[in-house]
Structure formats: C-alpha cells, structure tokens
C-alpha cells in the first residue's frame, strides 16, 4: 500500500515500534523509514548510540531502543520528516508525542487541535504541550502533543488553527 498510496500499513508501523515494555519505560524514537534511499543524518544527529552507524548510506536506520533516550535531536534532522518520539509513560490516559511540523501558523501551547492519521483524516483532538522552534530545528519545528492513549498509534500529524491549506 505504501508504494501505491503513500500510507504505510499497520504491519509497516508495527515493525518500527519498540516493545510495549520499552514504550512504558519512557520516551523513545519511532522512525518510519521504509525505503533504502541514500540518507543518514538521523545517525549523525544521534549522540547516544540509539541510531546505529550505517554500513551503507542506503541502509535503513537500525535503532537500539535501549540506548535511545528519546532526546528528540534526530526529529528535525530527518529530511523525510519520518521521525517522531513517543512517551507512553507521560500520563495514565495520554501519550506524549513529539512530531516534526513545517507549516504556519504554528499551533499555540495549551490549545486543543485536530490530530490527523497517516491519511490526513481527523482522529481525535490533541493538546499542544509545547512548540520547539530554535535555530537547531531550522524551521522543522518540533511540536509536543498529548494524545488520548486509545488513539496514539494512529496519530501522525496535526492541523493547526485555520489550516493554511484552506486559506
């Protein structure tokens, strides 16, 4: 499906998720990179050995979920915007997700906005916890959202305020 529609299947997604046990320990990276393209900045950005060295630049990234501490440094380094960090341990009812976002206007801290799935359809309202937009992010802002636990595996995007797609 991914190669036909751009939407990864549940099986694709399961493959890049860590175990439930690891998820419950705290923040961890999810890299939705399914194709052997020449690209390795995620490895270059990682300082804890969570994303392991590439043998070939076209290798898929290999993640050591035990070493990854969910620091988020790799999120805005991925040219494909394929990386997010999930903190399942955040709250009993909510998962904290840190996702890359390159649209204006940026969402505002504290507001509830639409959480979108991998097709761009609204799933549930999510709460914006923070917007990280420093020089390091270089315009690929990292948005932290709280997502109801029942839906976290579906959420992959947000629609902030008056979506500029409709302005």
């Amino acid at each position, binding site marked *: 499906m*991914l190669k036909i529609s751009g939407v990864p299947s549940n099986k694709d997604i399961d493959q890049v998720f860590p175990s439930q046990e690891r998820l419950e320990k705290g923040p961890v990276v999810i890299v*939705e990179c399914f194709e*052997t393209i020449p*690209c390795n900045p995620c490895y270059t950005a990682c300082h804890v050995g969570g994303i392991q060295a590439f043998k070939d630049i076209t290798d898929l990234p290999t993640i050591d979920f035990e070493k990854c501490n969910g620091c988020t440094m790799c999120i805005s380094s991925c040219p494909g915007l394929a990386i997010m960090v999930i903190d399942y341990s955040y709250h009993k009812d909510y998962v904290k997700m840190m996702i890359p976002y390159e649209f204006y206007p940026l969402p505002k801290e504290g507001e509830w906005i639409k959480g*979108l799935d991998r097709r761009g359809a609204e799933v549930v309202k999510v709460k914006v916890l923070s917007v990280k937009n420093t020089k390091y992010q270089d315009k690929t802002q990292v948005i932290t959202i709280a997502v109801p636990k029942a839906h976290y595996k579906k959420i992959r995007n947000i629609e902030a305020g008056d979506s500029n797609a409709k302005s």
Partner: protein
Amino acid sequence: MIHTDILIIGGGPSGLCAAIAAAKSGAEVMLVERSQYFGGQLVKQTHMFFGSEKQYAATRGFDIGKKLVEEVKNSDNIKIFHSTTALGIYEDGVVTLEQKFESEEIYLKVQAKSLIVTTGALEKSLPFPNNDLPGIYGAGAVQTLMNEYLVKPGKRVLMVGAGNIGLIISYQLLQAGVEVAGIIDASPRIGGYLVHASKIRRSGVPIFTGYTIVKAEGTDHLEKATIAKVDQHWKPIPGTEKEMNVDVMCISVGLTPSSAFFWQGGCEMEYVRELGGYVPKRNRYLRTTVGNIYVAGDSAGIEEASSAMVEGSIAGLAASHDLGFVYEGYNREIEELLQELEGLRGGEKGIHIRRGYNKVGF
C-alpha cells in the same frame, strides 16, 4: 579573447562544486551562468537534502546554494560571470558568450584549455487536449513563481507526476497555503521517495497511482481536469474518468539532460532511457570522448542534486589534474568522491541509475 584554464558552463550545484574543486590546485577557472543568480535549482529548494553530511544532508537546498556561492566568491582563482549565456562552441574550441549588461548585450569569446559542461536539464511535457490553457505549468515554473517570486500559482492544484519533484512541489504548495486536489501518476507505483509521499498523504492529499490526464477544460483559463485509470498498456480505461475542479495543473513528468554543447562539441552521444535522454559517453572521471570536455550533474544524466554536487567535484578535480596542476590530496580525494557517488547510487532507488551508468562508460 579571454584565456582561461577551465571554463565551466552552468552555475548550478555541479558547476559550483566543479569550480571549487578545480580552483584548489591553482587552475584559473571561469564560471558562467545564464541567470542573475548562481545556485541553479538549489535556489528554489526549500526542503532539507538527503545524502550524508558530506553533501550537506539535512540542510535546506537554498542554504546549500548560499554556502557554495560564498565559497566560489571567496576563491581568488574563480572568475564568475552571471547573466551570461554560453552560445556555442566552435571547431577551434572557442566558446562564445553573451553577457547582459544594463540594457546591452556584450559578446565575448573564450579560449579555455578545458571545458566542464554542467548545463542541467529541461522539463519534459505531456500531450493532452487543451494542454496550452493558462494555469497549466511545468513543475519548474510553479516552483519559480512560488519560491523565487513569492507568487501563488493559483488556488487548487492537480499535480501530474509522483516523482520526487512532483511530491516536493506538492508539499511546498501546501506550505504556501495552496490546496492540492491530488497527485496522479500513470505508473502503478510512486516514483519519488516514500517519505515525501507519506508526509503529503498525512496532510490529506490523495495520491492516485495508475491514473493519467485525459483532458483539460476551461474558457480562458484552466477550470477542470479529467483523469482516468490506465490499463497495462498505459491507455485510459473508459468509464474510469474522474473530474477535478482545479485552476492549476502542474506537469512534473521528468527531465531530460540539456545536451546541446556535447553535440556541438563533437562528443560521442548515447541515448539512455534511465538517464533521461541523450548523454555524452564519459570515463569514471567524467571526461567525454572529446579529451578536454567534461560533464557533470543533470546534463550527465538525471539524478539527485547530492550526486550532481559530487560529480561536479570529481570533474573539477580531474580537469585541473589532467591539465597538469598539482594538488596533493588529489588521489585520495577523487577516490573518496567516487566512493561517495557509488554510495549515493546504492539501494533500491539507485537500481535505475546504476543500470543507466553502465551504458555510458568508455
């Protein structure tokens, strides 16, 4: 008559890298660019680049352009000529140029010991009824309007072509606040990087693989496009038509190398489908069959800008080396670059390119 060691035609990513590499050994380099700006397509690339740190991965295209232009301007050995179009290459090797100056055009002649041609590529078009209606653009034009002139091309776009350029421009249209009604591609599979496809898809833009454009309609500008599914012979299947109300159609169906200088210079040419059309034969150091003409970038075969930059560096180093300029790190550096290039052409996306390059060596 201007005399120089190396003349480089085209100031895009490969031309800039060729100039920097050639100047390192002390060769005198002249770099000419038709446009007012150097950087070629990099100027319009707002996305982060792929590849590795060596090709500025994770840096945005226009920022890479700025870095390279800065480096070229800081080199004492490189003379740069913008607004200067190379007109032709003559039997005695003289290249003629036309330089815009105020409202005049100045005619220049250059005798260079070697020539590196990095003229890039031309966009392919698509025949269908009413494809000349206003509102139907080539992908490059949409990107120029949007990212160079800051003008929205319209309100609602149909993107034709799901290669990297079609996908990237769709994303940039969304960022500019333009609605993208959908992306179609006659191929059964998405041609561009899947990470690009996924990020557009999750912004709600549908991708219709296996669809082609049937016709465009509108009185004085584009108002409606009809698309249809294709069969295994790429022919539209009657009854599968869908109508889309769009005021812009962006045609992004691939590029073909800009090869005029190689033909005129007498280089042995080869038609290679995988590389986008006619390209000059060349050795691994990018020297063509005419000993002092080198090729790099999209004019050598359609590829990503990261490969174009590496090729530029290889051609620049090799051209100055072949002229007898001594650069101590030459052997190590050129081998590293060749390896880098091979790396970039690895993986499943590189199969096509690798097949193409196997056909053009000599």
